[in-house]
């Protein structure tokens, strides 16, 4: 039975639980709701929950454990040298799984019968070719061990699936019977249901923690693996970046970090004044009508996917900068450059800076403006001498947040900044960033056992720490230096 069918079965049993639970409670009170502890619907929900919660839990656990158990069973098929390194082991298991899936597909398409799939041997001809006929492309010829393991895998999977169905069904049934037996008019169904609901609610609120834990674990784990293969001193202090999948690569962080910082710097030079001045205009000068049109219009920029900005950088802005500025002045001849990416990220960040600045400017109390106007200051003097100083911590915090967004931006730099890792001051030169290299090291066919691939996790770690640090500093500044009015 497929997982989907199992879910259908659980749903049907839950429905039964709902109807029977409700009916039983009503019957035990002879249809008089006033005699029951809870409203009838709670007895129904109790029945349904008793079916759903334990059976789903059992199903999830089974799904998590089954692959591990099967993997352990298949260990015997592989020579010990494969089992020693976890990477080789994962690869071998992936091979087995792919061959097993291929056999499944072949059966589904009628190219093989169930018996043939169990009987096929490498001695009879190429299994790879036979699987290729049904559209399963395998990287290499199937070895006898892998084939045998795959066949065993299929057998075990069949057994596992039957066990899974039986277990889930039994658990669901047990829940149903329990709920039916316990239900009578004095049973405190509402309290029980509310307890379960509360448990589910608090469980879902831990997803945020689980995500963070997942991020940290995946970054730290793989980074540590990277640092066992590649010295950390070289990663942090080497000045060259030249990955080479044949080995012997230089994986220095410095050029990438420099590119990231340079591009973010250019972007903040663009975004800060434009965002700040548009916020000042909208908050202090614009009439409500103008504001109600212009503010959403600026925020449209924030709603446009970054890949659109990336295409704009690649197709429009990059060539313009190259043809009009870089080539005539002899500064460079590349369409993708620090300038291109920086300008476009700056544009992307304008609404971000502007809405943050708008918020903090609006938070400055009107009394301070009125006081300033009262002693004869003009609007611009009020802005410069009263409002901006009062709003400064918020504005600085906003700039730091914008900087952190610029550092983490991926698509615009991937499409607009170039791929050459170099330490250079010329803004019309193509440079690259941490995010670009994460993408380029991890896309395509990659195997997770070379430092060239794993370096992406160390880069991700650096990026994570960098942006998180900036965010923490920004929030700290905002909180520490915020003027408390009222």
């Amino acid at each position, binding site marked *: 039975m497929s997982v989907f069918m199992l879910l259908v079965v659980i749903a049907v049993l839950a429905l039964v639980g709902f109807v029977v639970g409700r009916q039983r409670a009503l019957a035990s009170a002879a249809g008089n709701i006033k005699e029951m502890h809870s409203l009838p619907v709670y007895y129904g929900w109790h029945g349904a929950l008793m079916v759903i919660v334990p059976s789903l839990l059992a199903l999830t656990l089974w799904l998590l454990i089954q692959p591990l158990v099967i993997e352990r069973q298949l260990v015997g098929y592989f020579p010990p040298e494969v089992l020693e390194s976890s990477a080789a082991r994962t690869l071998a298991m992936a091979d087995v799984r792919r061959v097993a899936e291929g056999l499944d597909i072949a059966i589904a398409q009628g190219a093989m019968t169930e018996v043939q799939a169990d009987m096929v041997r490498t001695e009879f001809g190429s299994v790879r070719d036979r699987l290729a006929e049904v559209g399963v492309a395998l990287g290499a010829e199937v070895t006898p061990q892998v084939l045998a393991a795959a066949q065993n895998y299929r057998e075990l999977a069949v057994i596992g699936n039957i066990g899974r169905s039986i277990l889930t069904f039994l658990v669901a049934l047990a829940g149903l019977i329990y709920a039916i037996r316990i239900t009578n008019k004095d049973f405190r169904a509402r309290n029980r249901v*509310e307890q379960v609901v509360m448990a589910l609610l608090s469980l879902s609120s831990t997803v945020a923690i689980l995500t963070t834990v997942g991020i940290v674990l995946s*970054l730290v784990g793989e980074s540590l693996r990277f640092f066992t293969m590649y010295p950390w001193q070289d990663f942090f202090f080497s000045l060259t970046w030249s990955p080479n999948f044949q080995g012997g690569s230089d994986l220095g962080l410095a050029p990438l970090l420099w590119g990231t910082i340079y591009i973010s710097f250019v972007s903040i030079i663009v975004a800060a004044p434009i965002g700040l*001045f548009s916020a000042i205009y909208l908050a202090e000068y614009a009439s409500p009508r103008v504001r109600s049109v212009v503010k959403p219009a600026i925020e449209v920029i924030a709603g*446009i996917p970054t890949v659109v900005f990336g295409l*704009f950088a690649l197709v429009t802005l990059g060539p313009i900068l190259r043809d009009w500025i870089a080539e005539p002045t002899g500064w460079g001849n590349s369409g993708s450059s620090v300038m291109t990416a920086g300008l476009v990220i700056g544009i992307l960040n304008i609404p971000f800076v502007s809405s943050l600045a708008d918020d903090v400017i609006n938070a400055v109390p009107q009394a301070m403006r009125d006081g300033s106007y009262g002693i004869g200051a003009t609007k611009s003097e009020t802005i410069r001498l009263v409002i901006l100083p009062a709003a400064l911590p918020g504005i600085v915090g906003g700039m730091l947040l914008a900087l952190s*967004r610029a550092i983490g931006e991926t698509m615009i730099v991937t499409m607009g900044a170039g791929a050459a890792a170099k330490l250079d001051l010329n803004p019309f030169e193509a440079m690259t960033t941490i995010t670009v290299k994460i993408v380029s090291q991890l896309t395509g066919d990659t195997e997770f056992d070379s430092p060239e691939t794993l370096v992406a996790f160390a880069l*991700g770690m650096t990026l994570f720490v960098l942006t998180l640090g900036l965010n923490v500093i920004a929030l700290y500044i905002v909180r520490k230096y915020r003027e408390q009015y009222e």
Partner: protein
Amino acid sequence: MSDASTNPSDVPHKSESLLVPSKLMRRRNAAETRYKAYGIAAIVISLATLGIMLFTIFSDGISAFSQATLRFPVTMDAATLDPKGNRDIAEMTKVTTIGYKKVLEKSLIDELNKRQVAVDGVSEKDIGAFISGDAPARLRDMVLADPSLIGQTIDFSAFATGRIDGYFKGRVTMETAKLDSNISPEQLQLADKMKQAGILDVRFNPKFFTNPDASDTRPESSGLGVAIIGTLYMMALVVVLSLPLGVAAAIYLEEFAPQNRFTDLIEVNISNLAAVPSIVFGILGLAIFINFGGLPQSSSLVGALVLTLMALPTIIIATRASLRAVPPSIRTAALGIGASKVQMVFHHVLPLAMPGILTGTILSLATSLGETGPLLLIGMEAFVVNYPSGPLTGGVMEPATALPVQVYAWAARSDPAFIERASGAIIVLLAFLLVMNIVAIILRRRFERRW
């Protein structure tokens, strides 16, 4: 006594008229105008850039929706397509697309001769090169599905190749054709004549929405089919996964959670997650869901899981804001008539907060619709030609792409015809976003209550 009156020379411009602005006042007023001008300039710059960007995308991309198409009668030559003449499918599958290409080529040349279009020294092979590489395959599928077509003459429409198409859209000119090994100016002149003869025309191309991606050499037959399916699968999954989870978490944190270290930790986590760069979520997806969890690479399921994790913080924050907006009087009234706390929340607070929650969810869905970076890491930039199967038969586990990723993949190709396609894909993407935002605005306008 003030300082000013003891030192009269410090009080300037005593003799000047009040009606004429003093020098200082003029300077101050100039500063005033300057500030205003800066503000207007900043707004004009940002809106103008937005306008220019959208304009270039639209002017590049709108032509992706139409395509130069050849229409001519094709005579299914039995001698080529079914050499043994017994209409046996097994025998006929041995005829590859090369055979069908010959049939198409011959039919096109016959049609040119019939309409008396002067070929002017364009070789037969170069005429054959007008026909897109996917036409023979399509014809072959048609014939294999219905062998009785052999020997008949049917009306067939095939895309012209990308260069011919580009010529009618202004991307390819006589000058560039001279330098291009794939097309010659003579061919372009012939294309003009074919257009006059009515064999070739540029028309709306619905296949742009339905075809899967195509290889580098035939941009004309590439389409958004797989990307749209993948995007729809992901969006559906993201809603199913993130809405209940996000709302439940928000309800717990806003209504029930005790003030303690654990809930503080959760709150700090949520606000930090909202600021984590999206690419990091891609790394998470790759390490946890693919490498550790063994889920298939490039599948819409993994994409949806990653986007769900990204969307959750925003959904939680939006939901909490709209729960908070429900006035306390509603809560006390519900408790006052004997509702339990859970009943109060689910019967009264949540329904009232629902419009706000849905608006927030749609907006965060719109953000994740345009997300590209993390999807690249989980392999969704792969070249996928097969449509994923239906959602109930495991289609979410099969390789797919998404609209923004397709934009990136096309932008990375060398043929400029793909830039047009990438811009066209962006138009489709923006249309999706526009619809979602309009729905969110309508929801907010119609159902949001001010207390």
